[in-house]
């Protein structure tokens, strides 16, 4: 940890999420933190990552904060415009996308996601934005990474609604379900990185200053802990933080 450097939980999440992007990835990003992670990776360790937006924007490089994927600010700097069928059809369903970065309301131990609706304890239902391209990304990308804040209510062994399938659904594997790709490989939160593999979820690393036991207690899904304990996630660098603050999220909507 560099002396004098401090960061917010949101910045830590953006940096940890960006580290999941590999140079050369072809990536479909959801709005918000996934987008900050993707742009941060491109400006640091993964300069040749290609980012795509389902609305039909290829490799955007926005300079202003956008209100969403349908905000024209978000499409600035794109190298090509096309259609949803080109991004989610030709690129994604056509097996040309290596990484999907997705947000979630609720996640289970196999990385299946709910972005459709939440049912409160009193039975009240609250509806959210639904799948959009999220289900398509989960069904067809070579791998996906889930980016979300760490709240116990967001982890559930049974989702209120399974919008996007993870590594297994009802005990069935992706090939048995007819899905391609490995599925989700990690859940990155503002407290930890949870690796997802063939045997389930493992607490791979906790962020600097986090107590592993407290993180496990705040993660109510089956969660393995490595014999020697989890690693510590690398701290954000000054360069990463400057990029987030000056360029990628200057209004602090996602990382404040």
């Amino acid at each position, binding site marked *: 940890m560099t002396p004098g450097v401090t960061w917010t939980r949101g910045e830590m999440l953006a940096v940890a999420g960006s580290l999941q992007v590999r140079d050369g990835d072809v990536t479909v990003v959801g709005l918000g933190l996934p987008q900050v992670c993707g742009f941060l990776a491109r400006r640091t360790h993964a300069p040749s990552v290609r980012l795509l937006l389902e609305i039909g924007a290829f490799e955007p490089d926005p300079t202003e904060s956008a209100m969403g994927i349908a905000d024209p600010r978000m499409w600035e700097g794109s190298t090509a*415009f096309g*259609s*949803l069928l080109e991004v989610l059809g030709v690129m994604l369903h056509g097996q040309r996308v290596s990484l999907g970065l997705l947000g979630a309301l609720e996640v289970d131990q196999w990385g299946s996601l709910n972005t459709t609706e939440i049912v409160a304890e009193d039975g009240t239902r609250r509806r*959210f934005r639904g799948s959009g391209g999220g289900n398509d990304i989960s069904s067809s990308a070579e791998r996906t990474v889930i980016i979300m804040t760490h709240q116990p209510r967001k982890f559930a062994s049974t989702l209120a609604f399974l919008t996007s399938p993870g590594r297994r659904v009802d005990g069935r594997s992706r090939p048995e379900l*007819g899905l391609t790709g490995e599925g989700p490989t990690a859940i990155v939160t503002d407290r930890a990185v949870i690796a997802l593999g063939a045997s389930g979820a493992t607490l791979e690393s906790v962020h600097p200053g986090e107590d592993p036991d407290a993180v496990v207690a705040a993660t109510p899904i089956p969660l393995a802990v490595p014999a020697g304990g989890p690693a510590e996630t690398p701290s954000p660098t000054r360069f990463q933080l400057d990029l987030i603050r000056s360029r990628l999220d200057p209004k602090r909507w996602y990382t404040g």
Partner: protein
Amino acid sequence: MTVGLDRRCSMGDFVAGIADGTHLALAGFAISRNAVAFAHELVRAGRRHLTVTQVIGGLETDLLAAAGAVDTLTYGGGSLDRYGPLHGVNQAALGGSLTLVEYSALALTLRLHAGALGLPFIATRSMLGSDLASAPTDRGEVRAGENPFDGAPCLIMSPLRPDVAVVHVDAADKAGNAAITGPTWSIPETARAARSLAVVAEEIVKVGDIDPSNVDIPAAIVDAVIPAPRGAYPTAVYGHYDYDGAHLQMYVDAGASGPAGLAAYLERWVYGTASFDEYLLRAVA
């Protein structure tokens, strides 16, 4: 120069031809390129029992749902981006007056694509293993099957052919050749799937003024050309105007206070205005 057909008509005349119970296809996306002028006119005309298909819902969808005009909405989700959720859609759905059928964005686009091409069916891996497949399966719109060539599981989907599609374009000539700039999301498939297509245009240009290479929707599939400058307000039209964030926020705030809030918005801004031009004058004043 070909004289050609003249398919221009006013928004009022077009809406007069849309009956209760029509299956509409809309093509806005959240806060961009919504056919808001069309939605206002439909609401003022008191249309009921509409079925709406839209890949990503936005303001137009929510206005129709808030007005109680829609019985069934088939969509791939939707929102007003960071301004907030589709309160009108969500409240009508949770209240039981609106049946929501949720797809993934790609699966619904593929059903429209199959409808446009007259394909007997189309198959995908999207929605397999998810809860999204349940409602469309129960409705007989999709079914789990297997690839006849390799036996792998797949989702077999029926083609979708709405009655009327309404699409907001940058420019159109009087015959209907239309151009769109920026990303086109599911506009191409939505426009082509419907049995009848209306283009709502920011600008009417002379036949031949749009370079044929730039025509996104050929007149051959267009039935009506409706002039409506700023007709997508308060949503954005790329290259023409930005969204009006303050107005969108006011709409979302009205929705957040419940159905009465949306009713008050409609009363003030839709029922309380004689035309979309009057709405624009008041809204930007």
